[in-house]
């Protein structure tokens, strides 16, 4: 009897713990912050002087400095977008530190990384992940990459995996040829801002025919309050090659907002395949405004697997331009919007060549008044005959206060094509819960089961380690959602 009482009591306790809500253990797992012993921290605000200083710090060639300054003019000239989310109006560009240098250079050994920064990444489990299942790691702390390593056998095969700053120093010709060809600085206001103040990110080049069997990963960490992180990533997969790149991100919880605005460009040459997986778990004071775009040439494949759990506002629509015959594009997107969050996610596919194929699968879950939006574009250009595409966007609402919006755009300029579009919005129904509970499952468990089933088609595409982490995060997001 006593034993039963104890187990009952612990059950109640554990359910109470579960009622803590969204990302309940964010504070202890990711929300900590370190003391700031920085080599340089730019004053708040953006101007020509800051941009020149960043370029000078990095001893960049003149063309890159000119590129930055021109992008800055574009940034100033463009108005803040008014579409997407009313939260965008809260972004205060004058209240952000645009460059913070924590370390002298990107180290190749954990032992050489500054002690407090190393402690952060140890706590986040990065060195352990590197040993177990990664082919390389880039760890970015504030504005710059503090640690970077790639497996030796891949380096011998000619694979380049560098932080972008080192990439520019060591492979200037390659970068000059491809940099900003997929996303020009004037593409949008945020891309212009990134182009002006970019720092860090990854440069990946995979030579023809080389398959990188384990993924390299980049991990992005913001530590300072009111910080702007503007990494820049360029991945080139040469003919017939394959790479799966993974990124993750966290930040401490502060009252002042931070801004993360990345630009990611992918180039898949004929027959190549790039998969790019993101598990975005910024703290809920981060504006996450990112431009991601890929080109896929003949017989190439690009897949974006995009999971958005954290941030205050995310606006991100990874896109694939299918430029060569039989190219394939795939976008799998999960967004989870909790209290105070707006996840404006989705994707864009442009069929610019014949017999190209694509899929967009987007799932959003909203709870506690959160807002999840799907915003997508499917375009089939004149001449892209024989193309096929399927767009499916599903939204799950967990309560009456939450919100879901779908903004799909489909433009077709060719007759001989096959396009399917399905959209659903559903609410976790009392009958579903009742059915599961009648089998002895608690209400909390039942709703978790329904959510897990809802997102399963996407989590099964994640590498096992990330699928486990993703499920754990979703479970945390779910806790306390019912009752």
């Amino acid at each position: 009897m006593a034993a039963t009482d104890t187990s009952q009591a612990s059950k109640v306790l554990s359910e109470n713990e579960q009622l803590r809500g969204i990302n309940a253990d964010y504070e202890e797992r990711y929300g900590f912050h370190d003391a700031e012993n920085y080599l340089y921290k730019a004053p708040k605000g953006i101007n020509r002087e800051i941009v020149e200083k960043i370029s000078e710090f990095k001893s960049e060639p003149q063309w890159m400095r000119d590129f930055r300054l021109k992008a800055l003019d574009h940034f100033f000239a463009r108005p803040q977008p008014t579409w997407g989310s009313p939260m965008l109006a809260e972004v205060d560009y004058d209240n952000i530190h645009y460059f913070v240098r924590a370390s002298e250079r990107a180290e190749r050994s954990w032992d050489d990384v500054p002690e407090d920064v190393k402690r952060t990444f140890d706590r986040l489990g990065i060195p352990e992940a590197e040993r177990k299942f990664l082919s390389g790691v880039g760890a970015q702390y504030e504005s710059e990459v503090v640690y970077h390593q790639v497996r030796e056998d891949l380096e011998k095969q000619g694979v380049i995996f560098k932080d972008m700053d080192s990439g520019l120093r060591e492979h200037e010709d390659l970068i000059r040829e491809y940099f900003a060809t997929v996303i020009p600085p004037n593409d949008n206001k945020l891309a212009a801002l990134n182009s002006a103040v970019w720092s860090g990110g990854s440069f990946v080049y995979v030579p023809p025919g080389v398959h990188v069997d384990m993924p390299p990963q980049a991990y992005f960490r913001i530590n300072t309050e009111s910080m702007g992180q503007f990494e820049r990533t360029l991945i080139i997969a040469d003919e017939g090659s394959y790479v799966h790149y993974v990124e993750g991100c966290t930040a401490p919880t502060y009252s002042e907002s931070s801004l993360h605005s990345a630009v990611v460009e992918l180039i898949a040459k004929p027959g190549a395949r790039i998969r790019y997986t993101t598990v975005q778990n910024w703290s809920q004071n981060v504006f996450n405004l990112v431009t991601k775009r890929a080109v896929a040439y003949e017989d190439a494949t690009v897949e974006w697997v995009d999971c958005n759990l954290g941030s205050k506002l995310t606006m991100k629509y990874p896109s694939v331009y299918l430029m060569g015959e039989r190219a394939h594009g795939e976008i799998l997107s999960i967004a989870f919007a909790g209290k105070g969050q707006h996840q404006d996610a989705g994707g864009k596919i442009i069929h610019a060549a014949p017999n190209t194929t694509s899929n967009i699968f987007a799932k959003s879950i909203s709870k506690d008044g959160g807002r999840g939006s799907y915003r997508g574009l499917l375009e089939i250009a004149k001449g892209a005959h024989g193309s096929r595409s399927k767009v499916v966007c599903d939204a799950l609402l967990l309560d009456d206060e939450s919100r879901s919006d779908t903004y799909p755009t489909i433009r077709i300029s060719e007759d001989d094509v096959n396009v399917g579009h399905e959209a659903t919005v559903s609410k976790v129904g009392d009958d579903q819960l009742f059915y599961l509970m009648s089998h002895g499952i608690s209400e909390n468990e039942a709703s978790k089961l329904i959510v897990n089933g809802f997102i399963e088609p996407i989590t099964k595409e994640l590498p096992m380690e990330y699928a486990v982490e993703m499920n754990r995060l979703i479970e945390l997001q779910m806790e306390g959602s019912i009752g």
Partner: protein
Amino acid sequence: MPELIEVCPVAELKPGERRLVEWEDLEIGVFNCAGSLYAIEDRCSHDDGPLAEGEFDQESCTVECPRHGSLFDLRTGKPKTLPAYVPVDTFPVIIEDHTIKLEVE
């Protein structure tokens, strides 16, 4: 049947300069790239905005769309960077009697 339209005297379009001409409902940008003359449609294929007024680089013989930054090759009309991916129309440039003329139809 192609038609020849007059742009201006050769001496009035020096290297690095450009000029906009209209013909029926078409607007065409004429560029002097270091002595070679090219003409392209004044319309970005990405969102139909004006193109010819963008930044002109005669060294690389390109014009940059002022709206979203696609770079177009003036010789071919092909975009060298996204977001535009469809080429714009180009027009043959002819010099006759010290006058720049375009062949349009």
